[in-house]
Each structure stands twice: as C-alpha cells, then as structure tokens.
C-alpha cells in the first residue's frame, strides 16, 4: 500500500495513495501506518482519504486500531472523505469518534486562527 507524507511544524499529513482500504488491504494499511506514525514524533496526524473510493468494515477497524496504537498523546484526524467512505463512517457512527475535515488544508487554517 502506498502513502505520501507531508510534515508541517504542527501536523503530519498522511495521504493514502490507494483506491481501497478493504479486507485485502487492511493489514498492510495498519503496518504501514504504524511505521509512518512511529518514525516521526508528530503529535497531530491527519489522514487524507481523498484517493480512497471504498472502505469496508475491515478497513474501518484498521483505522480505529491505528488510532488506538497512537495512544492518547497523539491525535488522529481524517480528511477528504469520498462519498462511499463517508457513508460507511456515518452508518457506523464512526463520524462521531473522529474529527473530520472536508479538505486536509482546513486543519492548517485552524492552527493559523488559533
């Protein structure tokens, strides 16, 4: 599974460069995310899902698992939900667990404002 990362002083942006986070991709997603977030000590990670057209319950579980691994000291937000991904988060109420931005850049506005 491919990712692209961009770090600002405040936030690590991780973009998933894959069309699907499904059962076939969930383990690879989890391992990669653990490596990426483990390496850099960022305290705020934004997962950009704008390239992801589909997620299933295994993928959803993998995202939750990554958030749990990061612990309470690091924050994981989501951004760029495509329609079907958004639907899965809404139906499972997972949209209430995560802070979700429309675009990854919206996060920076918040830092600038605050």
């Amino acid at each position, binding site marked *: 599974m491919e990712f692209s990362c961009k770090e600002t002083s405040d936030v690590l942006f991780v973009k998933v460069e894959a069309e699907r986070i499904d059962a076939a991709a969930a383990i690879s997603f989890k391992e990669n995310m653990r490596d990426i977030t483990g390496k850099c000590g960022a305290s705020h990670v934004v997962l950009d899902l704008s390239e992801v057209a589909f997620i*299933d319950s295994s993928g959803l579980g993998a995202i*939750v698992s990554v958030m749990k691994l990061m612990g309470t000291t690091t924050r994981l937000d989501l951004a760029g939900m495509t329609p079907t991904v958004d639907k899965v988060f809404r139906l*499972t109420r997972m949209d209430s667990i995560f802070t979700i931005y429309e675009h990854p850049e919206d996060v920076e506005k918040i830092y600038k404002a605050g």
Partner: protein
Amino acid sequence: MQICETNNTNKHQLHVEFPSGEMSVRQALGQLMSVLTPYDLSEDDLGSVEIVLGEVLNNVVEHAYAESDDGMVLMSCTPGAHVLRFCVEDEGVALPHAELPKGTLPCMDGPLETLPEGGFGWYLVQNLALDLHYRRIGRRNVLAFSIPFEGNG
C-alpha cells in the same frame, strides 16, 4: 455449485463464481460493479451495493472458509425495477446457531482503548439490505437479500 433462485427464470441474472480469498472478492466486486452499469443506479446506490456485498463476501472468506482458499463462492444478482436481488452461496461452515447474527452496532462510548475494531459488518448489511434470509441447505450456506435503489432520475 448451484445457482440460487432458479425460480426467477424470466429475468436477466448475473452470476460470478470464484475461489475464496480476499483478492478474489475484490475482483468479483469489481466485476459486479461493472456489470451493473446498464441499470439506473446512482453513485450512492452503487456505494450501498459495494458496501453490502463487500461485507457478505468477506464474511464468507474469513468465517465460512476461515481463510482456507479452496472453497468456491457464488454471487448472483437479479436486477429488478427498483431493487437488486442478491444471493450468495458457499460450502463452508454454517453461521453460528445456523441463524443470522443480530447486526447491532458495537458499543462506542468507552475510552479510546475500548473502541471496537470489528463487528460492523453485519450491522452494515442489516442497515442497507432488505428481506435478508439465511438458509443452510445440506452443506451449503445460502444468503439472499435485496438492495433497493433510487436511480438518477
């Protein structure tokens, strides 16, 4: 493997039969989505279909065949005017108590460490599909359900 719903003899029907495995499910789902293009499904309808079938087929791979990859899975779809009727068959282990799981949403109001990482699958299926019926027939699991669609009009 037999074809489900052979009584629908006058309707256009699509079937994909494939060996168990997560990559096979991905391919079969892709084929299902492409084969639905002649019907008037909206993006949102297609999303529901892909979500439900993804859960059902991956349940077969993970639970009925428990990761062994020599079982076959048969997915059938009969498109109607406002509904797609599906049937999924496998020759794996039966559902627990030979009945449909409740499909309730796992509890999510505890602290971070207790957040559920699974158990959403049947909930999504129950939420998006109608007329869900499960039968154990001999050594086969037969799961039938409908997904209504709005279309673009």
